[in-house]
């Protein structure tokens, strides 16, 4: 990944964090890494644990950020989330997957929060809501 891309991602995450704080989310962990995949932000929204992916786009030409959280990425996120829940004995806890998309094409970045962006079925396969 190029340096500008990583920098963009980091900025996006900071922006997302500030946005989520205003929405009443409370951040618990950032950049949770496993060998299966990475989760950008783990936060608590009320009693629900949220695994949040942040997608930042510099320009509008490739579509909105959210569109790029494709099936494969969702699967990686789900695996990492399961790993997290398992190691913290939280498999029974209520949780969901959210996506924050940030569009930096405008002068003021546009932040969009999609709650419950996708779900896991009983075989731990991902599907859209």
């Amino acid at each position, binding site marked *: 990944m190029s340096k500008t891309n990583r920098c963009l991602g980091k900025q996006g995450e900071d922006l997302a964090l500030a946005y989520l*704080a*205003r929405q009443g989310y*409370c951040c618990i962990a950032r950049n949770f890494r496993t060998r299966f995949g990475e989760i950008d932000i783990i936060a*608590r929204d009320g009693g629900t644990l949220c695994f949040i992916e942040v997608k930042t786009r510099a320009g509008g030409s490739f579509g909105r950020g959210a569109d790029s959280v494709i099936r494969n990425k969702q699967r990686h996120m789900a695996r990492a989330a399961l790993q997290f829940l398992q*190691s913290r*004995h939280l498999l029974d*806890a209520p949780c969901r997957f959210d996506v924050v998309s940030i569009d930096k094409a405008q002068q003021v970045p546009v932040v969009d929060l999609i709650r419950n962006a996708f779900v896991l079925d009983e075989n731990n396969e991902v599907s859209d809501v």
Partner: protein
Amino acid sequence: MRDMTYYERKYRTLGRTTIIGVDEAGRGPLAGPVVAAAVCLKKRSFASRIDDSKRLSVSQRAAAYHELMTGCFYGIGIVNEAVIDRINILAATKCAMEQAIERLFARLPDRRREAVHVLIDGTVRLDIGFYNTCIVKGDQKDRSIAAASILAKVTRDRIMGIYDSVFPSWGFMQHKGYPTKSHRRAIDRFGRSRIHRISFCGVKDKPLSG
């Protein structure tokens, strides 16, 4: 009086090998963040006194803090005043504690990640998956919680020290944001700063300045 390892020994006999102490600092103040620390001690004994942060002097705390930096695994959780205003102080404290435990857990070696028992100061019920126990006045009763109270207190004091240089009018270096007479007088005179908790009584109706 039971000694400072009573609870630790109690849960060790149940097979819990990793004992984590959690405490918070800064629930009462009118300004600044709430800071929580989670601690897993590496050693049995420490040269400096490990006790409730409120019972130690500033220099004793500094010495203990210095020794704890290498003598334990730790995680610090910080929740700022904007979030406190939004989700209330209890939820913010819980969140800071959870954040602290999470950061500590990420630093623990694999063999210490099994059979975890978390000892929490006060009556805060956390939604964590580990076995946990709340101990009222835990910072005086258990050494892991005492160590956590020292880390949380010293960290918060440092943050307030930095804020003091940014917002010098309120005297955060002296009272660390706690509602002392001099702090209330400063609020009456200067209004509230950007780091005051708007949701707290005595700050709510004051104009913003600085």
